[in-house]
């Protein structure tokens, strides 16, 4: 045994902590923190298009984005579209996900695993494939959707969904819902399965059955999971870009009606047709996206998640 003097001796520096933390900290810094800082830095500069001189302009780029007519229109439109995109996901994707999960967990459905896999499958597909497939299906020229609608007597409902300003964004949102509905379904399904069987049986004995059982017991117990799904949807939607780019191109047609912050950022940063690329304004938009998501997540964490109790089950 060590004598009492061990208290006096200084504890050696614990190098192993640094050694173990080092690689992860390094990778995270290089691929997350540095690009973020660099984006933020870029947004404070402007390059003269003729002389290529780089000048520090402070918040001038933000001033331009918010108050210059040339920028504010597209920016607010993209922001609004993005908001709609998010709302459609919240109102369609997540309730459908909950519904499917509830159905899957409730019945001894033959082929249950098949349904689960089939519904989850699109999530594994690339945006490019999803965009391309839906573009083909919805095409007024050779798409199958017209024939399918006609075959059930709804032929008159058909229109070029992706080609009209009024319907393009909603159509894209629904395509995205189709692709990603498997994620809320899986998370909710897992959450529903984690509710102890005996609690449900107790509810049966208490006469709390069917819909009452779902709303009074199950739904409340899975609320924390629904919260997580909401925030994942929010972050995913405000970062969305790929689907619009692959189906409608970088101009987010028709007439910018499907423009999201992601496509606006892309056009601004790299330039498109007559519009020259402007990395500094692009960085400004990227920073704004970052802050919008940051604020959204913060609101969720500080105001919503605290009220969602995770019940010990």
């Amino acid at each position, binding site marked *: 045994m060590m004598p009492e003097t061990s208290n006096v001796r200084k504890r050696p520096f614990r190098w192993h902590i640094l050694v173990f933390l080092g690689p992860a900290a390094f990778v995270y810094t290089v691929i997350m923190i540095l690009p973020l800082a660099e984006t933020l830095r870029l947004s404070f500069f402007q390059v003269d298009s003729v002389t290529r001189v780089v000048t520090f302009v402070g918040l001038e780029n933000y001033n331009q984005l918010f108050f210059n007519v040339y920028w504010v229109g597209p920016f607010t439109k993209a922001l609004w579209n993005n908001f709609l995109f998010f709302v459609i996901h919240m109102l369609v994707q997540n309730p459908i996900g909950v519904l499917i999960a509830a159905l899957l967990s409730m019945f001894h459905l033959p082929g249950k695993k098949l349904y689960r896999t089939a519904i989850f499958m699109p999530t594994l597909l690339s945006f490019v494939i999803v965009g391309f497939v839906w573009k083909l299906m919805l095409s007024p020229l050779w798409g199958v959707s017209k024939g399918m609608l006609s075959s059930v007597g709804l032929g008159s409902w058909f229109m070029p969904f992706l080609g009209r300003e009024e319907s393009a964004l909603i159509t894209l949102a629904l395509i995205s819902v189709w692709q990603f509905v498997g994620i809320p379904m899986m998370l909710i399904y897992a959450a529903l399965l984690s509710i*102890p069987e*005996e*609690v449900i*049986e*107790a*509810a*049966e*004995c*208490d*006469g*709390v*059955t069917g819909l*009452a059982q779902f709303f*009074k*017991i199950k739904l*409340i*117990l899975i609320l924390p999971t629904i919260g997580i799904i909401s925030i994942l949807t929010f972050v995913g939607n405000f970062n969305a870009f790929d689907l619009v780019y692959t189906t409608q191109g970088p101009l987010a047609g028709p007439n910018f009606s499907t423009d999201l912050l992601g496509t606006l950022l892309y056009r601004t940063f790299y330039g498109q047709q007559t519009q020259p690329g402007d990395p500094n304004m692009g960085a400004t938009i990227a920073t704004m996206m970052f802050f919008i998501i940051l604020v959204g997540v913060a609101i969720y964490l500080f105001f919503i998640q605290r009220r969602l*109790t995770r*019940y*010990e*089950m």
Partner: protein
Amino acid sequence: MANLKISALHKSFGPVKVLEGVDLDIASGEFLVLLGPSGCGKSTLLRIIAGLEDESAGDILLDGVSIANLPPAKRGIAMVFQTYALYPHLTVRGNMALVLKQAGYSKAEIAKRVAESARALELEDLLHRKPSELSGGQRQRVAIGRAIVRDPKVFLFDEPLSNLDAALRGQVRLEIARLHLRLTATMVYVTHDQVEAMTLADRIVVLNGGEIQQIGTPRQLYEKPQNQFVAGFIGSPAMNFLPLENIEGKTGVWPGGARQKLPESAPETHGPTILGVRPGGCDLRPANAGKLEKTALAGEVMLEEYLGDASFVHVRLDEGANVIVRQQTSNRQVPGTKVHVVLDPAALHLFDATSGQRLGA
């Protein structure tokens, strides 16, 4: 107050037969315990009574009326689960009130009933708490409270004590016994713990392999087990079983030829027989008493389990069988000592070696 009758109940899960023709008549106000090892079908039987599981065949009658096709909530039966199964998001009050709300009682009636049950179970100070803020024993009381607010005809308990620690188990057991005395309700209680069964039950049903082995009062089961399974299952440590060659003239013949005196009730003659004797029904003698050779079993002390008020001595007989003998603690036994085991004829149980059924009265 209601009597519950179960007739010719069968249950199979696919090809697996869990219950094979169970008949039970439970009197009004009776405390009936279903006892058996895991997988004997006792929980399934309880769940079928509750309506959580469908029977494959047979009927369940409550006061003469079939309830087999009613949903659980309409059967007038309340169930207390092993894991308590409280609603984690509701307070104690909410947990107890939900069933009444669902049944459409008025607010005043709900408040009155919850208050009464809470008073009876000393839950009044806990009514605003969530289940996660309660101890195991308190949770179990809430689970019982949730059962009594609805004033059911029959209470079902599914191993309600097995999630509690030993000290609490005794206490809650006492509470359930008091509850039964006060409510005089019909109760069916499932357990694999024979102490719970013996202390609580008016009658015990011993189940094994989906079949009823014996129904009787705790005393009947302990003193007159109908077959070898019941004999081995009831009592701790378990009854010792030793094979007899046969019985001749009310005397047992050991495989070595030695003789064993049998109880008065033993049959005159019988073929191969299993002799059962509880640890308290045997005694140890020093091996050097040579005259014992003809009437006692020679063996060697393996180990001694000291329990304070008594000790259990494990003896390996020369023929190979093990016997546990209850001894006064003053009579210390050293492992390795050669001993003779003598059996008290009055304490012997005899079973047919092939059927396992009890021989004699």
